[in-house]
């Protein structure tokens, strides 16, 4: 329903001026731009260098000032339409340029006409960069849809689906109550898999989903699978891409537990450190997997891509093999819905349609209630 009503889910917005990736791109682009201008003015490589150094004495403080103002005004700017927002950015550029010029002119007298040149350079840069960011956003938004489709396809292995159905059927006669719970877990799992997963959701929901998933695996694998949860200090309200952990746990079970008849432990460690959310997943590493090979790379690449779409350079995913364990470490910035609705950070564009419903589901699952309402 939501997808049909929201014809254009991504109206053009200004870039997120608080994102490290955005800031880095601006810094590099402006300094390169200054170098190009310097070269164009002198036409000589050697004199261009001196010209560039001289220009940066103004360009860099100018750029810092503009970036600082934009950083501060980011929550407010993100609520404006693209046109008005772009106008405001231009205004910020002109005002900061003029102010800075006035201050610097008092310290070191500057040649006449320099102010006009800098303002023109500044405005030109703003126009080019905004155009670039808009193109980039446009290029990425189909990718978000694409990522969602991938999320549907690459998520659950058919292997898991059919084995789980088989496990549930086996319970129907002997333990109907457990069969009921297992089917409820499956229903929740598939509800999440099939909904719109483009928007960030609270970490506690993801953890709940992972618990349901692992409960189903436990049904099949019995005491071959031990799960070690370390989530006491996790920030439950942190916003994460949905299905950030589940596919990785599925990998952990498929590659770390299933190929061996000996019991193994999958450990999940979630914590907050210096404004960043860390997730560390570990599973036993078996070299002689016997048929369990491909598929691992796909899930990792999928999660990595979605992290990049949501957080750009501020998130990372690293995997490594130690002596007898395989470990995945995810790091994302700590953002919460409360902070977002106050500031409206544009990484979560628009309202989160599933959020309300999710929180209720999380609660009902914790209370052990059977949810009957149709989502």
């Amino acid at each position: 329903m939501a997808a049909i009503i929201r014809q254009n889910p991504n109206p053009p917005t200004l870039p997120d001026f608080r994102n490290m990736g955005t800031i880095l791109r601006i810094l590099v682009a402006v300094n390169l731009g200054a170098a190009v201008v310097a070269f164009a003015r002198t036409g000589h490589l050697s004199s261009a260098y001196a010209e560039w150094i001289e220009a940066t004495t103004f360009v860099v403080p100018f750029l810092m000032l503009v970036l600082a103002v934009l950083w501060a005004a980011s929550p407010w700017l993100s609520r404006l339409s693209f046109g008005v927002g772009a106008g405001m950015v231009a205004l910020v550029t002109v005002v900061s340029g003029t102010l800075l010029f006035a201050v610097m002119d008092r310290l070191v007298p500057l040649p006449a006409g320099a102010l006009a040149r800098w303002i023109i350079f500044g405005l030109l840069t703003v126009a080019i960069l905004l155009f670039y960011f808009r193109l980039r956003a446009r290029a990425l938004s189909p990718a978000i849809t694409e990522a969602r489709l991938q999320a549907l396809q690459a998520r659950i292995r058919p292997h898991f689906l059919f084995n789980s159905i088989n496990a549930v059927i086996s319970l129907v006669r002997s333990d109907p109550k457990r069969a009921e719970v297992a089917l409820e877990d499956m229903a929740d799992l598939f509800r999440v898999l099939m909904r719109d997963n483009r928007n960030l959701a609270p970490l506690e929901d993801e953890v709940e989903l992972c618990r349901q998933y692992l409960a189903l695996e436990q049904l099949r694998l019995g005491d071959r699978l031990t799960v070690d949860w370390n989530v006491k200090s996790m920030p439950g309200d942190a916003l994460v891409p949905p299905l950030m952990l589940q596919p990785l746990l599925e990998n952990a079970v498929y590659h770390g537990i299933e190929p061996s008849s000996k019991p193994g432990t999958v450990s999940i460690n979630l914590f907050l450190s210096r404004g960043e959310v860390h997730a560390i997943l570990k599973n036993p590493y078996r070299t002689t997997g016997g048929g369990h090979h491909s598929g691992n790379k796909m899930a990792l690449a999928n999660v990595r891509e979605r992290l990049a779409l949501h957080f750009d350079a501020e998130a990372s995913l690293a995997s490594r093999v130690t002596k007898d364990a395989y470990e995945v470490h995810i790091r994302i910035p700590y953002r919460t819905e409360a902070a977002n609705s106050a500031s409206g950070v544009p990484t979560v564009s628009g309202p989160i349609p599933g959020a309300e419903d999710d929180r209720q589901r999380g609660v009902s699952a914790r209370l052990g209630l059977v949810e009957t309402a149709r989502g």
Partner: protein
Amino acid sequence: MADNPLRLLIVDDEAPARRRLRDLLEDCATALPLVIIGEAQHGREALEMLQNAPVDLVLTDISMPDMDGVELARHLLKLSHPPVVIFTTAFHEHAVQAFELNAVDYLMKPIRVQRLLGALQKVPRLKPVSAEKLSQLPTTARRFLSVTERSRVVLVPVEDVVYLKAELKYITIRTSQREYLLEESLTRLETEFGARFVRVHRNCLAARDHIRGFERRQNDDGDAHWEVLLEGVQETLPVSRRQQFVVREMGRETAA
């Protein structure tokens, strides 16, 4: 209807899957007399159980740890009365297609009781699937080689094998403990196990992990040749002139 009940064994690594199959078989028991002689969690356990209690039918899952279903079927052929094997699988990527192509019987999980009954009724007319056909199925290299000794099937873990040597009709399997005789083709074994073994002579494959080094030896006729020195066994293996490049390749590895 046959006078003797159908004797069968269930093999699956997942307990719920075994229980489900048992439930279904009990449903079938009214239409077709049968006895479940036991349940095994993987191929190795199944083979152990069948040494002492022969059965007519083994219902086995395909993907299992330690020894998968297809490997189990290959070893079962060594029994004096090999049972019929019907595979069960929930989902095994492309495997199913290969089973169809080779007319190997399988049941898709979750199994329907009618399908199971149909398969059970066919069993008396079926013959065990040949080793030839089984090797056509997509499977990983075997974890064990199996040999028959005093009407028992003995499993030799592939990682314990020091070398394989073809002699007349048989292949000698050498482990650090003792020797076994195997009736298979050396070329087939070479393809199946790929990089684990290296051919040092027309009639001999040596396990890379067990090669300690090489030694130059003087022949009686004045020529010289290389001998492979092995971990865990006293004897050495001659390297044929055609396979001398192996010494250079592996010598570099051991030196590094």
